């Protein structure tokens, strides 16, 4: 007596074939078929409650409109012609960031913790960066990159200096607490780390000074979900390194910024 093969079970589940008589006689095949049907049903049921978030269609339409507008703006192409299309993706990412930020802030304002909301937003930006790594502006020429950032956020953020062993994977503009901020991703030893440059002080971000950089700047630290956060204040901006790495590794990233 030959038991049913996996392929035959799949054909039965898909309704491609009737249940063979063998199954009626064979307790083992009957049990396996019941089990496969039960798993298929449960998987279907598990996803049936998932729906697109309210407003996603509107946000996508806004993203499409923004893309069309960006397409029709030749000035942007003159800044960094090679990466024009990536500006569009940055725009879309910003739309998504606004949503995530809004949700995050909504959640945390409810608990009365604006500082925590800032750390949630930093972490969300890091996740957005990871998901869009292939779409980040990846200009090799530092001057062009600087010009791009100045055009987008009004300043040129410090980046790890050559020879630090930190490769920059790309940069982008994100929404943070209602404003556009610069962000870039560097490949640290164990995983990518996002550096997000925000005007808020580390204290306002709810972080605590716990270490010092090689140049004796305070490193303000925090943690949200699976990500560590470490910030240094440089002039008018806080440079916040965020990633699923140790605080020590985040400090290495911050130490790689030129003084």
């Amino acid at each position, binding site marked *: 007596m030959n038991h049913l093969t996996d392929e035959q079970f799949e054909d039965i589940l898909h309704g491609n074939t009737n249940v063979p008589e063998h199954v009626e006689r064979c307790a083992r095949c009957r049990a396996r078929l019941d089990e496969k049907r039960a798993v298929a*049903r449960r998987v*279907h049921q598990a996803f049936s409650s998932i729906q*697109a978030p309210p407003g996603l269609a509107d946000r*996508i339409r806004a993203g499409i409109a923004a893309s069309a507008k960006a397409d029709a703006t030749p000035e942007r192409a003159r800044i960094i012609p090679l990466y024009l299309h990536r500006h569009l993706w940055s725009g879309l990412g910003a739309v998504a960031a606004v949503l995530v930020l809004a949700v995050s802030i909504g959640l945390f304002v409810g608990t009365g913790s604006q500082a925590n909301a800032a750390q949630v937003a930093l972490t969300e930006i890091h996740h957005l960066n*990871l998901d869009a790594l292939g779409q980040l502006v990846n200009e090799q020429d530092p001057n062009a990159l600087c010009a791009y950032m100045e055009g987008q956020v009004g300043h040129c953020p410090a980046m790890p200096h050559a020879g630090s062993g930190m490769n920059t994977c790309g940069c982008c503009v994100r929404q943070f607490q209602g404003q556009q901020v610069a962000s870039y991703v560097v490949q640290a030893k164990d995983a990518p780390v996002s550096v997000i440059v925000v005007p808020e002080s580390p204290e306002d971000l709810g972080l605590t000074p716990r270490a010092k950089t090689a140049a004796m700047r305070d490193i303000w630290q925090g943690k949200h979900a699976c990500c560590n956060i470490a910030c240094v204040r440089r002039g008018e901006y806080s440079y916040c390194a965020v990633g699923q790495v140790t605080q020590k590794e985040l400090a290495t990233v911050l130490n790689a910024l030129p003084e």
Partner: protein
Amino acid sequence: MESPERFEQIVLSHLDSLYRAAAALCGRMDGAEDLVQTTVLKALERCETFERGTNCKAWLFQIMRNIRIDQLRHRRVVGNTVPIDEELVTAKPEAEATAWSDARDLLENFSDEQVIRALKRLPEDQRLTLFLTDVEQLSQQEVAEITGAAVGTVKSRASRARNELRKHLLAYAKEMGFAGRDR
């Protein structure tokens, strides 16, 4: 050929399905939303390539899968690993496949979230195949076209995925103490 506005409407009518697929692929909801947006934008760019009368949803899934592959390829280049949410299912699956004493009753003990998280532990090709067959209930031929595999591969992949999923769930059930009897 539909007008761009009509085509946009058609594409957006599949938003829930796209979001579910993206959630199955990405794991995180924020990543899922990004993937859906990217997919929709790419679909609108390529609307001329859509063959009228064919399954638009399947076509969208194919675009999403290609985008996802590009994302993963890039992450591998930069040395990243695909982030996985904190796992609810932590036990290693058992090597031997045995039938559950009562699969339906046992499965009811899991929350939707636990089932989805267990699914996330499967390799991406198995996960997508199972999603397309069991959740979207597409034909094996359609799944084959979306995943770029032969129909026979789709069958074996779906079967492996189902077996792996039940192993993960069984391991978790034992850990949680609501299963212990194998036949």
